[in-house]
């Protein structure tokens, strides 16, 4: 495992910073243009969720490089209000999406692996991985 690089999300502008860092890492590992764009979009969604619902938090990136494959792993952490009904926010057409396909189900689609842990009043941790094809 390579060392982590993290971006603090405090204001809307930080979303752009997180995208930039994520895209640079993705490019370096060898992702194509389409996947770079998808990774950036997933970062936007995670960072916006922090900015909108948790006030502040962090997005950390890690390069995964083992015998089998290479990829990017990102973890979004906040100590915000947490998610009461995870099933509901993961449901298509619910919440912030409003037909835009955005929100956490969107992140799940954009990435290859997705994991979500949340506790009410403690915070949320979303982990997502994309592998180089």
């Amino acid at each position, binding site marked *: 495992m390579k060392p982590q690089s993290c971006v603090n999300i405090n204001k809307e502008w930080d979303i752009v910073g997180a995208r930039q860092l994520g895209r640079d890492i993705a490019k370096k590992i060898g992702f194509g243009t389409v996947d770079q764009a998808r990774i950036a979009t997933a970062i936007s969604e995670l960072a916006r969720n922090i900015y909108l619902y948790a006030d502040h938090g962090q997005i950390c990136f890690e390069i995964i490089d083992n015998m089998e494959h290479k990829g990017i792993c990102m973890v979004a952490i906040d100590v915000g209000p947490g998610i009461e009904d995870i099933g509901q926010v993961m449901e298509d*057409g619910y919440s912030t999406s409003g037909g835009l396909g*955005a929100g956490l189900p969107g992140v799940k689609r954009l990435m290859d692996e997705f994991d979500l842990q949340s506790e009410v009043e403690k915070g949320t941790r979303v982990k997502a991985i994309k592998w180089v094809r």
Partner: protein
Amino acid sequence: MDDILKLDAETYKELMKRYMETRDEQSLYEVEQASKSFIQNNILPDEIVNMHIQALEELYPSLSEDIQYSMNFLLEAMIAYGIAHQEYQTLREKQSELKSEISVAASMQETLLGTTKPDIEGIDIGIISVPAHQMNGDYHHFIKGRDGSLGIAMADVIGKGIPAALCMSMIKYSMDSYPEDVMSPKAILNSLNRVVERNVDPSMFITMFYAQYLPSEHKLRYASAGHEPGYYYNAANDTFEEIETKGLVLGVTPDTAYPEYEMDINKDDMVIMLTDGVTECRDGDRFIESEEVLEVIRYYAHLPAQEMVNQVFKHFERLQEFELRDDFTLLIIRREV
């Protein structure tokens, strides 16, 4: 998936190349077909833009950087469309699952609530009941007594769709459990009122009209629990009269009393029972008047009862542009001899 993408990218490039050389309609037609196959194979808009970028790079290696960057910009702009499209796909699948589940429920309801129009000499019966959505919140039931009498129940749950349909099953099974000697309209409504009061959510109301026809005496006994009033057609005077009744909707209080009425039915007279889906048909934004229903019935009165109700339904279905807003149930009995 990757293989399909590669193949499609190759096809796209070849088509584009040919088009650039010939500018022919044939290539445009073929790309239209290719575009359809992209949709079938779930190829997202950003991937199509990417195909275009790759084709450009291969066909025009010396293309200016500005154009290449602008194409990457376009690709970024298409990402959100791609996710929205995927969400839309999933929702569509879910919708068709739900639809098929509901249609199973609807056919089960039909079996549960099924009733057969009885053949009784001297009277002609016509009945039509069409749900606005898949499940019917209207209910009608025929009960042929051993004494030759005919019991007819017509009910409407306020509200429609699945909750209404579930409620109706309960009504039917309560009625099935009554012994034949309590089949008077008054007794049936009294007893159903208690069942509904005990078992149904207070926000749900059920109205019912119960009639018992005695062919030997040519009499109709009836009682109503707040149901849409029916009509009596007096053949001798060629007039329609509203059948007036008193009685609260089912389930409001446990001790509601339902007065029973009786009328003589002469030859060619008709009794019309309906639900508010008939009287509250809409013509554009306007609710129709109940006189209009009667006019239409009069217009088709020369037909056998079943033909008559079918034609009346067709009339109002067309008037509402084939989109019912409420369940529609209409029953007509005519004394023939």
